[in-house]
């Protein structure tokens, strides 16, 4: 405002106000070249992951068309797999797949929960990183090693556990085995090579993933709420129950489902341990079962082209199931408080 200082002079024309359009204007400064290159490269890589996944799904889907055309809905309901008799179906295999996964998860879930709670809440700071790396190391053990471990070290012990479970809980259909538990000598082979033993081996493979996801969310539980609980006179366990577990619920569910997705597809340990069987049964302690991945691995080498198409169809079903489970898991983790923060 210079008007006050200037002596009054000849009245000048009022200054024209610049015309401003009342529309949203562009305020994007644009990206420098280095950022543009980086964005471009990372976007291509990110999309290629998506494209590869879609390509696998499409490939399996197209390969499945002839099988579905030939067998129709019976492909999902038929239990036998006898391509030479023109009878193929995956119902027994599906049941076996879920039985092995169920056994694996019921062992892995409590172990993973306890491991992750111990590491994040109780372990002394010095010990913590050592434990984390040990659990990570479990994930690095090749699955063939877990399979051998299950076959040579666990199976001889597990058949006694299976026999004990059958003897005392045999009235529950789930623990039943088609043999007389009181017979002496009891039929050890009826308890070997079962979904139960395969499940134990698979549980060790999926435990690290579940434990890692749970530990991550537990360690994110807000310090303020932890201190609030402790400051009110809570014990450490009381604090965990009222703050850490409710906060980590999404991670617990999500981590469990992610490992379930892996347990459903686990192959080599199952191939090593179980002896193939194609009847629909819910008796995991009993000898023999089949899973989709075991079926594919076992029959792939000798398959004719139409058999190969049937195996790929079974693979397609497994792909869809794990896709659904993993997507649900990702949604649960993302929607929970622990996943949404940061």
């Amino acid at each position: 405002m210079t008007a006050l200082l200037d002596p009054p002079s000849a009245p000048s024309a009022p200054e024209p106000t610049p015309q401003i359009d009342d529309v949203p204007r562009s305020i994007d400064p644009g990206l420098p070249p280095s950022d543009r290159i980086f964005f471009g490269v990372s976007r291509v890589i990110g999309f290629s992951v998506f494209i590869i996944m879609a390509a696998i799904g499409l490939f399996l889907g197209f390969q499945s068309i002839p099988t579905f055309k030939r067998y129709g809905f019976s492909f999902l309901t038929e239990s036998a797999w006898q391509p030479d008799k023109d009878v193929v179906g995956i119902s027994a295999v599906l049941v076996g797949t879920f039985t092995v996964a169920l056994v694996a998860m019921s062992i892995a879930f409590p172990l993973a929960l306890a491991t992750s709670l111990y590491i994040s809440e109780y372990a002394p700071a010095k010990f913590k990183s050592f434990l984390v790396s040990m659990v990570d190391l479990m994930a690095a053990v090749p699955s063939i090693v877990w399979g051998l471990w299950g076959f040579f070290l666990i199976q001889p012990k597990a058949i006694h556990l299976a026999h004990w479970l059958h003897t005392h809980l045999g009235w529950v259909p789930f623990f039943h085995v088609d043999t007389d538990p009181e017979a002496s000598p009891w039929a050890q082979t009826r308890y070997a090579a079962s979904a139960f033993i395969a499940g134990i081996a698979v549980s060790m493979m999926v435990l690290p993933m579940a434990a890692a996801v749970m530990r991550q969310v537990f360690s994110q539980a807000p310090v303020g709420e932890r201190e609030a609980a402790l400051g009110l006179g809570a014990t450490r366990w009381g604090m965990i129950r009222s703050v850490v577990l409710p906060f980590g619920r999404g991670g617990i569910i999500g981590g469990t489902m992610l490992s379930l997705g892996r347990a459903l597809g686990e192959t080599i340990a199952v191939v090593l341990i179980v002896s193939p069987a194609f009847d629909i049964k819910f008796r995991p302690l009993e000898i023999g079962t089949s899973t989709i991945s075991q079926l594919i691995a076992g029959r792939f080498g000798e398959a004719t082209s139409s058999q190969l198409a049937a195996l790929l169809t079974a693979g397609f079903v497994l792909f869809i199931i794990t896709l659904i489970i993993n997507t649900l898991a990702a949604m649960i983790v993302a929607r929970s408080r622990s996943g949404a923060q940061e």
Partner: protein
Amino acid sequence: MTTAPEVNSLIPTYTDAPATDVVHVRGGSLNAVGVSAWFGSNKVLEKVSLEMPANTVTALIGPSGCGKSTFLRILNRMHELVPSAKLSGQVLLDGDDIYDPGHRITETRKRIGMVFQKPNPFPAMSIADNVTAGLKLTGTKIGKSDREALIERSLTRAGLWKEVKDRLKEPGSALSGGQQQRLCIARSLAVEPEVLLMDEPCSALDPTSTRRVEETIHEIKDQVTVVIVTHNMQQAARVSQQCAFFLAQLGTPGDIVEAGPTTEIFGNPRDPRTEDYVNGRFG
């Protein structure tokens, strides 16, 4: 023990206090004796001694990093939650050392409650459940009608009852920041502590909420001994009867420069550094 007679003389007699509802009408006396504290090898407090008489409000003032929050957290055993934290000295609650191995940490923390800088209600719990969370966490059983009375009494004491009485079932996180902080005060009061520690309870609040919290402090000090850390000099002058000025010279652990009645600290400080600080010349 020179404290006992002085403490007793400070206990007000409440002939007009409502006899109903109030479980205990007197707070506990706290006495810190030669308290030093470390984080790892870094010493942050050097032999601090301070008496916090029953039923008074003691304000801890001083610039950032002088150890006053650490001192406060030592008073109810929150300091040791930091893995590298160590301490020496004694903290006497009514003459008993709270660090004595014979005392349970949970019992000590129940008797000496704490309100934190950032309001931290349990977000998944309703307002009513937040108030009674302390009972649940300490395994204290309470009947349904007693529970409702306790909720009303605690929220009233924290000055929040009128605002939330029709929405007790809503989650605690639905409240405004100032209301959340008063909910946290109600939650602390519900376990009937003898001492309430407040770590800058108003630093995240607007002036109106700050005034409400200060009113609350005024009202509860008849039943609870209050120790409050504050960066706000006016607040210290308004709410406290006793004041302790902490200072940490560069590179040395924190210590109390001067402690005494608030009127003395603000009106007639003995140490020039205190005078400079309370008059806003540094810090």
